[in-house]
């Protein structure tokens, strides 16, 4: 066996080993989560019954549901807006190509910590702090998004062409002017696209916030599911589905426009 062939074989062997370990973990996870195909088959009639109880939807609650959906949309919009305002400077601070490591590393660590807290937990904390309603929802969406948006912005800034940044600096531009023209302008399309995507995600996240009293459509999700009013749940699903579809379309067009 030639040395080259031996190295190829070693690499392939390593790949096979990694694949085997990953497969073992997945099998273990299925066992651990009590996944049971027999149970699933026997539950078929229950699932079917649930589905039949969704129709016909009770359209009498449509207006109520739409109002609550608009509240959820406003929560998502305000939360995303606050997150963008805070995340841009944080993104600069977390970008290792523009900020010294002793600043960027702690900022990245804090962002990672924020990201790790589930939004529902943040919402519970804010409801306890500021009371019921959409306001704690806005705060929860904002804080949760900052962790992800700032990290993404930082990564975008890190991939920017540094020669262009240097060229802008070379015109005698100040530090802020260099950031704006040299760096931000380069990253803008990706930043806009990801922010729109985050807005979409925030709307979906915000739909469940009402369950803990943080406003919006979640209140009705909780109410109708717990009282088994599946015909009304159906209206919720339709309205949420339509809004998500519309947001998806808007997001697509905006990304195409800035791309």
């Amino acid at each position, binding site marked *: 066996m030639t040395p080259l062939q031996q190295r190829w074989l070693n690499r392939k062997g390593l790949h096979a080993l990694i694949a085997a370990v990953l497969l073992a973990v997945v099998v273990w996870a299925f066992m651990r989560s009590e996944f049971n195909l027999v149970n699933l088959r026997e539950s078929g009639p229950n699932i079917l019954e649930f589905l039949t109880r969704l129709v016909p939807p009770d359209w009498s609650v449509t207006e109520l549901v739409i109002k609550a959906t608009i509240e959820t949309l406003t929560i998502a919009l305000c939360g995303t807006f606050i997150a963008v305002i805070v995340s841009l400077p944080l993104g600069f601070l977390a970008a290792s190509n523009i900020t010294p490591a002793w600043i960027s590393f702690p900022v990245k660590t804090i962002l990672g910590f924020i990201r790790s807290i589930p939004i529902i937990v943040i919402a519970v904390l804010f409801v306890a702090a500021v009371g019921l309603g959409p306001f704690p929802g806005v705060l929860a969406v904002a804080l949760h998004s900052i962790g992800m948006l700032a990290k993404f912005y930082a990564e975008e800034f890190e991939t920017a*062409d540094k*020669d*262009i940044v*240097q*060229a*802008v*600096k*070379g*015109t*005698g*531009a*100040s530090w*802020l*002017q260099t950031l*704006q*023209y*040299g760096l931000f*302008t*380069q990253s*803008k*399309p990706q930043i806009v696209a990801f922010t729109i995507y985050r807005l979409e995600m925030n709307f979906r996240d915000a739909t469940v916030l009402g369950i803990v009293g943080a406003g919006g459509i979640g209140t009705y999700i909780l109410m109708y599911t717990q009282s088994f009013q599946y015909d009304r749940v159906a209206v919720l699903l339709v309205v949420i589905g339509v809004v998500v579809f519309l947001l998806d379309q808007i997001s697509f067009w905006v990304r195409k426009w800035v791309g």
Partner: protein
Amino acid sequence: MQPFSSTEAVIKLQSVRAGYGNTCVLSVDELSISSQERVFILGRSGSGKTTLSRLIKGRIPVMEGELSVLGESNVISNRDIQRRIAMVDQDFNLIPRLTLVENVLTGALGRTSPFRTFLGWYPASEWEKAESILAEVGLDGLGNRRIDTLSGGQQQRAAIARALMQDADIIIADEPVSNLDPELAEDALALLVACTARREVTLLVNLHQPRLARKFATRVLGLADGCIVYDGDPENLSTRDEEFIYRESELNPVSKDALSHDTSPAKMA
């Protein structure tokens, strides 16, 4: 800052060594460039041309020796000096998503208030200046086109326009025409020389074509292995000189190492 008289040296290097990390790639005993000179720097790739221009522009620090540009030794972090030394890069380094005129206007960043530039709201006088420069470089009518929709030749002119917008005292062009075909290259150099001559600017051009240097330069520097091996009039640049500048490197890798070790921090101290 006082304007420089034509006899005064705008760029002075004294026993300067420069490079990257601990590796020295440029060693200049003495170099003095006067105001309004058109200095064309010839040399093989890796001869130190780009390092010399980056050093003068303040993109890399001096390892050893004394450098003075426009009377200042601190070029790197002096915004006023940065504005007064414009650079036309080989890859142009224009901002791809902005329009042509927006790119040219960035040449005015150094003298425009941050509030205005934050909104992109440059004074009317800067717009007029940008438009007249665009006309001067033959790009009038294209101002609102996005820079990445322009051809290579047009981007080259855009980069020259941005440099002119800076109102610089020195313009450095690092292999400005290596991305263009030969005819365009000559036109672009002619344009650069004409525009800088009108403004009484000192021009430094890194180049690979001795023919073009003979045509446009007032002085030619030849670099080989990081040292100046020719300094004189373009008329006196003989074919033998050319061959000497473009000869195969005489230093073998070991002695190149010796050159780099020579400037290691321990030795410099």
